[in-house]
Protein backbone atom coordinates (compact mmCIF):
# COMPACT_ATOMS: atom_id res chain seq x y z
CA UNK A 1 0.00 0.00 0.00
CA UNK A 2 1.37 3.38 -0.98
CA UNK A 3 1.43 5.91 1.78
CA UNK A 4 0.92 9.58 1.51
CA UNK A 5 4.02 11.14 2.90
CA UNK A 6 4.22 14.48 4.61
CA UNK A 7 7.21 15.39 2.49
CA UNK A 8 5.75 14.23 -0.80
CA UNK A 9 7.02 16.11 -3.80
CA UNK A 10 4.85 18.30 -5.94
CA UNK A 11 5.22 19.74 -9.37
CA UNK A 12 3.04 21.34 -11.97
CA UNK A 13 2.45 19.10 -14.94
CA UNK A 14 2.67 20.45 -18.45
CA UNK A 15 -1.02 19.89 -18.79
CA UNK A 16 -2.58 23.02 -17.54
CA UNK A 17 -4.57 22.79 -14.34
CA UNK A 18 -3.20 19.44 -13.22
CA UNK A 19 -1.23 18.91 -10.08
CA UNK A 20 1.26 16.12 -9.85
CA UNK A 21 1.57 14.56 -6.45
CA UNK A 22 4.41 12.17 -5.93
CA UNK A 23 3.69 9.36 -3.52
CA UNK A 24 6.71 7.78 -1.92
CA UNK A 25 6.77 4.03 -2.40
CA UNK A 26 7.22 2.53 1.04
CA UNK A 27 6.09 -0.96 0.27
CA UNK A 28 4.50 -3.19 -2.32
CA UNK A 29 0.79 -3.57 -2.49
CA UNK A 30 -2.40 -2.53 -4.21
CA UNK A 31 -3.42 1.08 -4.51
CA UNK A 32 -6.18 1.92 -2.11
CA UNK A 33 -8.09 4.03 -4.62
CA UNK A 34 -10.90 3.20 -6.95
CA UNK A 35 -9.74 5.45 -9.75
CA UNK A 36 -6.60 3.58 -10.81
CA UNK A 37 -6.30 5.50 -14.07
CA UNK A 38 -5.10 8.48 -12.11
CA UNK A 39 -1.94 6.64 -11.05
CA UNK A 40 1.12 6.18 -13.21
CA UNK A 41 4.45 4.54 -12.51
CA UNK A 42 7.80 6.21 -13.05
CA UNK A 43 10.58 3.89 -11.99
CA UNK A 44 10.33 3.28 -8.29
CA UNK A 45 7.96 6.16 -7.80
CA UNK A 46 4.30 6.34 -8.34
CA UNK A 47 2.59 9.57 -9.15
CA UNK A 48 -0.97 10.66 -9.05
CA UNK A 49 -2.48 13.25 -11.34
CA UNK A 50 -5.27 15.11 -9.73
CA UNK A 51 -7.09 18.03 -11.19
CA UNK A 52 -7.24 20.92 -8.83
CA UNK A 53 -10.60 22.43 -8.47
CA UNK A 54 -12.25 24.79 -6.12
CA UNK A 55 -13.43 21.94 -3.90
CA UNK A 56 -10.05 20.46 -3.13
CA UNK A 57 -7.62 21.34 -0.39
CA UNK A 58 -4.30 22.60 -1.58
CA UNK A 59 -1.63 19.90 -1.09
CA UNK A 60 0.30 22.27 1.13
CA UNK A 61 -2.73 22.50 3.38
CA UNK A 62 -2.96 18.70 3.49
CA UNK A 63 0.70 18.52 4.43
CA UNK A 64 0.13 21.01 7.17
CA UNK A 65 -2.73 18.95 8.51
CA UNK A 66 -0.60 15.85 8.31
CA UNK A 67 2.25 17.43 10.23
CA UNK A 68 -0.15 18.65 12.88
CA UNK A 69 -2.46 15.69 13.41
CA UNK A 70 -0.96 12.54 11.89
CA UNK A 71 0.74 11.31 15.08
CA UNK A 72 -2.41 11.71 17.15
CA UNK A 73 -4.60 10.15 14.47
CA UNK A 74 -2.21 7.25 14.10
CA UNK A 75 -2.32 6.58 17.84
CA UNK A 76 -6.12 6.81 17.76
CA UNK A 77 -6.36 4.42 14.82
CA UNK A 78 -3.96 2.03 16.51
CA UNK A 79 -6.21 2.06 19.54
CA UNK A 80 -9.24 1.25 17.40
CA UNK A 81 -7.66 -1.27 15.05
CA UNK A 82 -4.96 -2.85 17.32
CA UNK A 83 -2.64 -3.05 14.34
CA UNK A 84 0.09 -0.66 13.24
CA UNK A 85 -0.27 -1.71 9.61
CA UNK A 86 -4.01 -1.20 9.55
CA UNK A 87 -3.60 2.10 11.34
CA UNK A 88 -1.14 3.27 8.69
CA UNK A 89 -3.53 2.25 5.95
CA UNK A 90 -6.46 4.00 7.57
CA UNK A 91 -4.32 7.08 8.14
CA UNK A 92 -3.43 7.25 4.49
CA UNK A 93 -7.07 6.93 3.49
CA UNK A 94 -7.98 9.63 5.97
CA UNK A 95 -5.62 12.15 4.44
CA UNK A 96 -6.72 11.25 0.95
CA UNK A 97 -10.23 12.08 2.07
CA UNK A 98 -8.87 15.27 3.58
CA UNK A 99 -7.34 16.23 0.25
CA UNK A 100 -10.60 15.57 -1.53
CA UNK A 101 -13.12 16.90 0.89
CA UNK A 102 -11.25 18.72 3.62
CA UNK A 103 -12.57 22.01 2.34
CA UNK A 104 -15.96 21.06 3.69
CA UNK A 105 -14.66 21.18 7.22
CA UNK A 106 -14.35 24.36 9.18
CA UNK A 107 -10.83 25.27 10.16
CA UNK A 108 -11.62 25.26 13.88
CA UNK A 109 -13.34 21.88 13.72
CA UNK A 110 -10.94 20.16 11.36
CA UNK A 111 -9.49 17.94 14.10
CA UNK A 112 -12.88 16.52 14.99
CA UNK A 113 -13.63 16.11 11.30
CA UNK A 114 -10.35 14.18 10.81
CA UNK A 115 -11.14 11.94 13.78
CA UNK A 116 -14.55 11.12 12.32
CA UNK A 117 -13.10 10.37 8.90
CA UNK A 118 -10.37 8.24 10.52
CA UNK A 119 -12.93 6.33 12.54
CA UNK A 120 -15.03 5.64 9.45
CA UNK A 121 -11.95 4.45 7.57
CA UNK A 122 -11.08 2.21 10.51
CA UNK A 123 -14.56 0.70 10.53
CA UNK A 124 -14.33 0.17 6.79
CA UNK A 125 -11.05 -1.65 7.26
CA UNK A 126 -12.51 -3.78 10.01
CA UNK A 127 -15.32 -4.87 7.76
CA UNK A 128 -12.93 -5.49 4.86
CA UNK A 129 -10.71 -7.65 6.97
CA UNK A 130 -13.76 -9.51 8.24
CA UNK A 131 -12.06 -10.08 11.52
CA UNK A 132 -14.02 -10.16 14.70
CA UNK A 133 -12.12 -7.75 16.87
CA UNK A 134 -13.64 -9.25 20.00
CA UNK A 135 -12.19 -12.65 19.22
CA UNK A 136 -8.70 -11.35 18.60
CA UNK A 137 -8.79 -8.30 20.82
CA UNK A 138 -5.46 -7.44 22.31
CA UNK A 139 -3.86 -4.45 23.91
CA UNK A 140 -3.38 -1.52 21.60
CA UNK A 141 0.24 -0.73 22.23
CA UNK A 142 2.67 -3.62 22.45
CA UNK A 143 2.87 -4.89 18.90
CA UNK A 144 3.25 -1.43 17.44
CA UNK A 145 6.62 -0.81 18.94
CA UNK A 146 8.15 -4.14 18.12
CA UNK A 147 9.55 -3.00 14.82
CA UNK A 148 9.65 0.72 15.30
CA UNK A 149 12.56 2.63 16.73
CA UNK A 150 11.67 5.07 19.46
CA UNK A 151 12.64 8.15 17.49
CA UNK A 152 10.94 7.11 14.26
CA UNK A 153 8.45 9.92 14.41
CA UNK A 154 5.62 7.60 15.42
CA UNK A 155 6.75 8.01 18.97
CA UNK A 156 9.04 10.92 19.61
CA UNK A 157 12.05 10.39 21.84
CA UNK A 158 10.99 13.49 23.74
CA UNK A 159 7.70 11.84 24.66
CA UNK A 160 9.49 8.73 25.83
CA UNK A 161 11.87 10.83 27.90
CA UNK A 162 9.00 12.67 29.56
CA UNK A 163 7.30 9.42 30.44
CA UNK A 164 10.57 7.99 31.69
CA UNK A 165 10.95 10.94 34.02
CA UNK A 166 7.38 10.44 35.16
CA UNK A 167 8.03 6.77 35.83
CA UNK A 168 11.13 7.58 37.83
CA UNK A 169 9.20 9.67 40.33
CA UNK A 170 6.28 7.30 40.72
CA UNK A 171 5.97 5.48 44.04
CA UNK A 172 7.45 2.01 43.74
CA UNK A 173 4.12 0.21 44.14
CA UNK A 174 2.51 2.29 41.38
CA UNK A 175 5.44 1.87 39.06
CA UNK A 176 5.35 -1.87 39.54
CA UNK A 177 1.69 -2.01 38.58
CA UNK A 178 2.34 0.16 35.51
CA UNK A 179 5.17 -2.09 34.43
CA UNK A 180 3.20 -5.27 34.96
CA UNK A 181 0.10 -3.95 33.17
CA UNK A 182 1.64 -2.12 30.23
CA UNK A 183 5.06 -3.63 29.68
CA UNK A 184 4.32 -7.19 30.69
CA UNK A 185 0.70 -7.01 29.51
CA UNK A 186 -0.73 -8.72 32.55
CA UNK A 187 -4.36 -8.08 33.32
CA UNK A 188 -5.38 -6.30 36.50
CA UNK A 189 -6.69 -9.60 37.86
CA UNK A 190 -3.38 -11.34 37.16
CA UNK A 191 -1.45 -8.54 38.83
CA UNK A 192 -3.69 -8.72 41.91
CA UNK A 193 -3.08 -12.46 42.17
CA UNK A 194 0.65 -12.09 41.61
CA UNK A 195 1.09 -9.34 44.19
CA UNK A 196 -1.44 -10.79 46.61
CA UNK A 197 -3.40 -7.54 46.86
CA UNK A 198 -7.06 -6.70 46.15
CA UNK A 199 -8.07 -5.97 42.56
CA UNK A 200 -9.33 -2.57 43.63
CA UNK A 201 -5.90 -1.67 44.97
CA UNK A 202 -4.28 -2.57 41.67
CA UNK A 203 -6.80 -0.47 39.73
CA UNK A 204 -6.39 2.47 42.11
CA UNK A 205 -2.60 2.39 41.81
CA UNK A 206 -2.79 2.14 38.02
CA UNK A 207 -5.19 5.00 37.73
CA UNK A 208 -3.17 7.23 40.03
CA UNK A 209 0.00 6.43 38.09
CA UNK A 210 -1.63 7.13 34.74
CA UNK A 211 -2.86 10.51 35.94
CA UNK A 212 0.67 11.46 36.97
CA UNK A 213 2.14 10.20 33.72
CA UNK A 214 -0.50 12.02 31.69
CA UNK A 215 0.35 15.25 33.48
CA UNK A 216 4.02 14.68 32.68
CA UNK A 217 3.15 13.98 29.06
CA UNK A 218 0.89 17.00 28.79
CA UNK A 219 3.47 19.32 30.27
CA UNK A 220 4.98 20.13 26.88
Amino acid at each position, binding site marked *: MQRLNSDCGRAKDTRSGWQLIELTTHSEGPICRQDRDRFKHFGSHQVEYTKLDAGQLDPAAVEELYAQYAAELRA*FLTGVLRSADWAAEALQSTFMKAAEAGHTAQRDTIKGWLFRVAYNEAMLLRRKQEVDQRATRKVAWQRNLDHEPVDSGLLRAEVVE*RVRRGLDVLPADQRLVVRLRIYEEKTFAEIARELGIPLGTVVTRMRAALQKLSRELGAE
Partner: protein
Amino acid sequence: MATERIENISDADLDWLAFQYAANELPGAEVDAFDRLLATDERACAALARAVTLSQAVVAAESVPARISGVVHRAVAVRASDSRRFSRGLLAATTVACGLLFVGWLSVRAPREESVVPDSAATVASLWVAGADEDAADEVAVPDAATNELVEEDPVPGWLMAALSEQQQAMEDEEIISD
Protein backbone atom coordinates in the same frame (compact mmCIF):
# COMPACT_ATOMS: atom_id res chain seq x y z
CA MET B 1 -22.44 2.29 29.83
CA ALA B 2 -24.63 4.74 28.04
CA THR B 3 -23.10 7.15 25.57
CA GLU B 4 -24.94 10.04 27.17
CA ARG B 5 -23.31 9.32 30.51
CA ILE B 6 -19.84 9.08 28.95
CA GLU B 7 -20.20 12.45 27.29
CA ASN B 8 -20.64 14.06 30.67
CA ILE B 9 -17.65 12.58 32.39
CA SER B 10 -14.48 14.51 33.17
CA ASP B 11 -11.29 14.37 31.14
CA ALA B 12 -9.61 12.28 33.85
CA ASP B 13 -12.43 9.75 33.81
CA LEU B 14 -12.43 9.72 30.03
CA ASP B 15 -8.66 9.09 30.01
CA TRP B 16 -9.15 6.19 32.40
CA LEU B 17 -11.97 4.79 30.28
CA ALA B 18 -9.86 5.13 27.14
CA PHE B 19 -6.96 3.34 28.80
CA GLN B 20 -9.22 0.49 29.86
CA TYR B 21 -10.51 0.30 26.28
CA ALA B 22 -6.97 0.22 24.89
CA ALA B 23 -5.90 -2.31 27.52
CA ASN B 24 -8.88 -4.51 26.73
CA GLU B 25 -10.09 -4.26 30.32
CA LEU B 26 -13.61 -3.05 29.56
CA PRO B 27 -16.60 -5.39 29.60
CA GLY B 28 -18.15 -6.08 26.19
CA ALA B 29 -21.10 -3.74 26.60
CA GLU B 30 -18.86 -0.86 27.58
CA VAL B 31 -16.57 -1.58 24.64
CA ASP B 32 -19.54 -1.20 22.30
CA ALA B 33 -20.58 2.00 24.02
CA PHE B 34 -17.08 3.43 23.79
CA ASP B 35 -16.85 2.40 20.13
CA ARG B 36 -20.03 4.33 19.43
CA LEU B 37 -18.68 7.29 21.34
CA LEU B 38 -15.52 7.28 19.24
CA ALA B 39 -17.65 7.77 16.14
CA THR B 40 -18.92 11.11 17.34
CA ASP B 41 -16.90 12.43 20.27
CA GLU B 42 -13.62 14.16 19.57
CA ARG B 43 -12.71 14.13 23.27
CA ALA B 44 -13.01 10.37 23.41
CA CYS B 45 -10.88 10.00 20.27
CA ALA B 46 -8.22 12.27 21.72
CA ALA B 47 -8.33 10.37 25.01
CA LEU B 48 -7.79 7.09 23.20
CA ALA B 49 -4.88 8.58 21.24
CA ARG B 50 -3.34 9.77 24.52
CA ALA B 51 -3.82 6.37 26.14
CA VAL B 52 -2.10 4.60 23.24
CA THR B 53 0.72 7.14 23.04
CA LEU B 54 1.30 6.97 26.79
CA SER B 55 1.31 3.19 26.81
CA GLN B 56 3.69 3.03 23.85
CA ALA B 57 5.98 5.50 25.60
CA VAL B 58 5.90 3.41 28.79
CA VAL B 59 6.84 0.31 26.80
CA ALA B 60 9.67 2.20 25.12
CA ALA B 61 10.86 3.70 28.41
CA GLU B 62 10.77 0.35 30.17
CA SER B 63 12.38 -1.44 27.23
CA VAL B 64 15.54 0.63 27.10
CA PRO B 65 16.56 0.15 30.76
CA ALA B 66 15.67 -3.51 30.41
CA ARG B 67 17.99 -3.83 27.46
CA ILE B 68 20.73 -1.89 29.22
CA SER B 69 20.34 -3.83 32.46
CA GLY B 70 20.26 -7.00 30.43
CA VAL B 71 23.62 -6.06 28.96
CA VAL B 72 24.89 -5.17 32.42
CA HIS B 73 23.59 -8.45 33.81
CA ARG B 74 25.27 -10.32 31.02
CA ALA B 75 28.48 -8.36 31.56
CA VAL B 76 28.34 -9.05 35.28
CA ALA B 77 27.68 -12.69 34.59
CA VAL B 78 30.63 -12.82 32.22
CA ARG B 79 32.80 -10.99 34.73
CA ALA B 80 31.65 -13.33 37.50
CA SER B 81 32.35 -16.31 35.32
CA ASP B 82 35.77 -14.92 34.43
CA SER B 83 36.38 -14.14 38.07
CA ARG B 84 35.52 -17.68 39.12
CA ARG B 85 37.72 -19.07 36.38
CA PHE B 86 40.54 -16.74 37.43
CA SER B 87 40.11 -17.66 41.10
CA ARG B 88 40.27 -21.34 40.30
CA GLY B 89 43.39 -20.80 38.19
CA LEU B 90 44.98 -18.68 40.88
CA LEU B 91 44.25 -21.31 43.51
CA ALA B 92 45.73 -24.05 41.35
CA ALA B 93 48.81 -21.98 40.56
CA THR B 94 49.25 -21.06 44.22
CA THR B 95 48.96 -24.70 45.23
CA VAL B 96 51.53 -25.75 42.65
CA ALA B 97 53.85 -22.91 43.65
CA CYS B 98 53.52 -23.77 47.34
CA GLY B 99 54.19 -27.40 46.53
CA LEU B 100 57.26 -26.51 44.56
CA LEU B 101 58.49 -24.17 47.28
CA PHE B 102 57.93 -26.86 49.87
CA VAL B 103 59.80 -29.42 47.80
CA GLY B 104 62.57 -26.91 47.21
CA TRP B 105 62.71 -26.04 50.87
CA LEU B 106 62.90 -29.73 51.76
CA SER B 107 65.68 -30.34 49.28
CA VAL B 108 67.70 -27.42 50.70
CA ARG B 109 66.79 -28.16 54.27
CA ALA B 110 67.43 -31.92 54.30
CA PRO B 111 71.28 -31.95 54.01
CA ARG B 112 71.58 -29.27 56.67
CA GLU B 113 69.50 -31.27 59.08
CA GLU B 114 71.76 -34.26 58.51
CA SER B 115 74.89 -32.19 59.05
CA VAL B 116 73.70 -30.47 62.19
CA VAL B 117 72.58 -33.57 64.03
CA PRO B 118 75.02 -33.52 66.88
CA ASP B 119 76.55 -36.66 68.16
CA SER B 120 77.98 -35.11 71.23
CA ALA B 121 77.70 -32.07 73.46
CA ALA B 122 81.03 -30.82 72.24
CA THR B 123 79.84 -30.95 68.64
CA VAL B 124 76.75 -28.95 69.51
CA ALA B 125 78.82 -26.30 71.18
CA SER B 126 81.26 -26.08 68.34
CA LEU B 127 78.46 -25.95 65.77
CA TRP B 128 76.79 -23.17 67.73
CA VAL B 129 79.88 -21.11 67.76
CA ALA B 130 80.61 -21.84 64.10
CA GLY B 131 77.03 -21.01 63.10
CA ALA B 132 77.13 -17.78 65.02
CA ASP B 133 80.36 -16.95 63.30
CA GLU B 134 78.92 -17.67 59.83
CA ASP B 135 75.79 -15.64 60.44
CA ALA B 136 77.67 -12.63 61.70
CA ALA B 137 80.52 -12.83 59.24
CA ASP B 138 79.36 -9.87 57.25
CA GLU B 139 78.74 -7.63 60.20
CA VAL B 140 81.24 -8.55 62.82
CA ALA B 141 84.87 -7.75 62.49
CA VAL B 142 87.24 -10.66 62.26
CA PRO B 143 88.39 -11.39 65.80
CA ASP B 144 91.96 -11.36 66.81
CA ALA B 145 93.20 -14.95 66.90
CA ALA B 146 95.56 -14.15 69.75
CA THR B 147 92.81 -13.24 72.15
CA ASN B 148 89.70 -15.02 73.32
CA GLU B 149 87.43 -12.27 72.09
CA LEU B 150 85.39 -14.64 69.93
CA VAL B 151 84.15 -16.55 72.93
CA GLU B 152 83.48 -13.37 74.78
CA GLU B 153 81.65 -11.77 71.88
CA ASP B 154 79.67 -14.93 71.00
CA PRO B 155 79.20 -16.67 74.27
CA VAL B 156 77.58 -20.07 74.43
CA PRO B 157 74.22 -19.42 76.14
CA GLY B 158 73.76 -20.50 79.71
CA TRP B 159 70.92 -22.91 78.92
CA LEU B 160 73.17 -24.69 76.44
CA MET B 161 76.02 -24.92 78.94
CA ALA B 162 73.55 -26.26 81.54
CA ALA B 163 72.26 -28.86 79.07
CA LEU B 164 75.80 -29.85 78.18
CA SER B 165 76.84 -30.19 81.80
CA GLU B 166 73.73 -32.28 82.52
CA GLN B 167 74.52 -34.47 79.54
CA GLN B 168 78.12 -34.73 80.65
CA GLN B 169 77.01 -35.64 84.17
CA ALA B 170 74.67 -38.30 82.82
CA MET B 171 77.45 -39.85 80.75
CA GLU B 172 79.73 -39.92 83.77
CA ASP B 173 76.96 -41.52 85.82
CA GLU B 174 76.44 -44.15 83.15
CA GLU B 175 80.17 -44.92 83.15
CA ILE B 176 80.15 -45.31 86.95
CA ILE B 177 77.17 -47.59 86.79
CA SER B 178 78.70 -49.72 84.07
CA ASP B 179 81.92 -49.95 86.03
